[in-house]
């Protein structure tokens, strides 16, 4: 049996090669396996002028009972500020804006009453709409990656956003 097969293979060797060639080419075309190892890097500049404008460096969306977006901008002079946009929080007189670690927020939410160990940016200016806050120099945003709206008096988190690099 094996002999007959090898004899058959020897006889039709050229035909087999010729027939399998287009199949191999087709498979290569479909899967392009070499692309597993080859990266194609591009580096297009922005198609518009970004000079002199504050540059967004972190952004996140509020969750919980609060909605809106927080974005951290870096001014051309290097100073950073935090901007809240389209903010809506349930009415509260004593809401503070705090920067802290997101794992602390997760732990704090599990507890009924809590205190945060982050950086207090002060009373929330208004509970509706757009507003800016200057960031103090030591605000380490890779560590303090959560912006929290927090009621200090009753110790509850009204809403928070995780900062992601822009």
């Amino acid at each position, binding site marked *: 049996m094996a002999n007959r097969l090898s004899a058959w293979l020897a006889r039709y060797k050229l035909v087999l090669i010729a027939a399998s060639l287009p199949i191999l080419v087709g498979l290569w*075309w*479909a*899967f*392009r396996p070499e*692309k*597993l190892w*080859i*990266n*194609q*890097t*591009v*580096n*297009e*500049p*922005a*198609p*518009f*002028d*970004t000079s002199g*404008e504050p540059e*967004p460096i972190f*952004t996140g*969306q509020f969750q919980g009972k609060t909605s809106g*977006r927080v*974005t951290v901008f870096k001014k051309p002079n290097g100073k950073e500020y935090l901007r809240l*946009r*389209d903010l809506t929080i349930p009415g509260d007189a004593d809401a503070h804006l705090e920067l802290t670690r997101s794992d602390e927020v997760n732990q704090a939410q599990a507890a009924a009453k809590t205190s945060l160990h982050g950086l207090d940016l002060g009373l929330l200016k208004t509970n509706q709409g757009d507003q800016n806050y200057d960031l103090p120099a030591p605000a380490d945003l890779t560590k303090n990656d959560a912006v929290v709206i927090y009621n200090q008096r009753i110790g509850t988190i009204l809403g928070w956003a995780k900062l*992601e*690099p*822009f």
Partner: protein
Amino acid sequence: MLRYMQTRIALALLLSLMGFAYASAQEKAQILFTGAFHGKVHNTSGRATVYQESDGRLVLRLTKFKTSNGPDVHVVLIAAKDADDDANFLKNSTEKIKLGALKGNEGDQNYDIPKGTDLQKFQTVSIYCERFNANFGAAPLKKF
């Protein structure tokens, strides 16, 4: 010799003026939407941002972008809030708008968004392998 120098200086002045005119012709743009890419199977990461230029044109810009290289990969907008990593756009007959072939699997890149595109409807950017109907990664666009 002097004349030759004068021509050279005049030419240099002219070129720098043209450069200045080109730079000031580049307009500012406003961010409308942004979102981060997710995609585990094909390891897709980075950010997608929609800018509106001062003349109203919409541009999708990918930054810090990375995905796996593959055949026939396109950048598409899909009519969905987000897409699962194993989403099948054909099966779910998801509406798509093609923005073009992916320019590179790594790095910053820009794509024009056709005039009149409803971004309230087409809310997600997908890196889509047309040949195998595979979603390499998706970025849900949220209001900035």
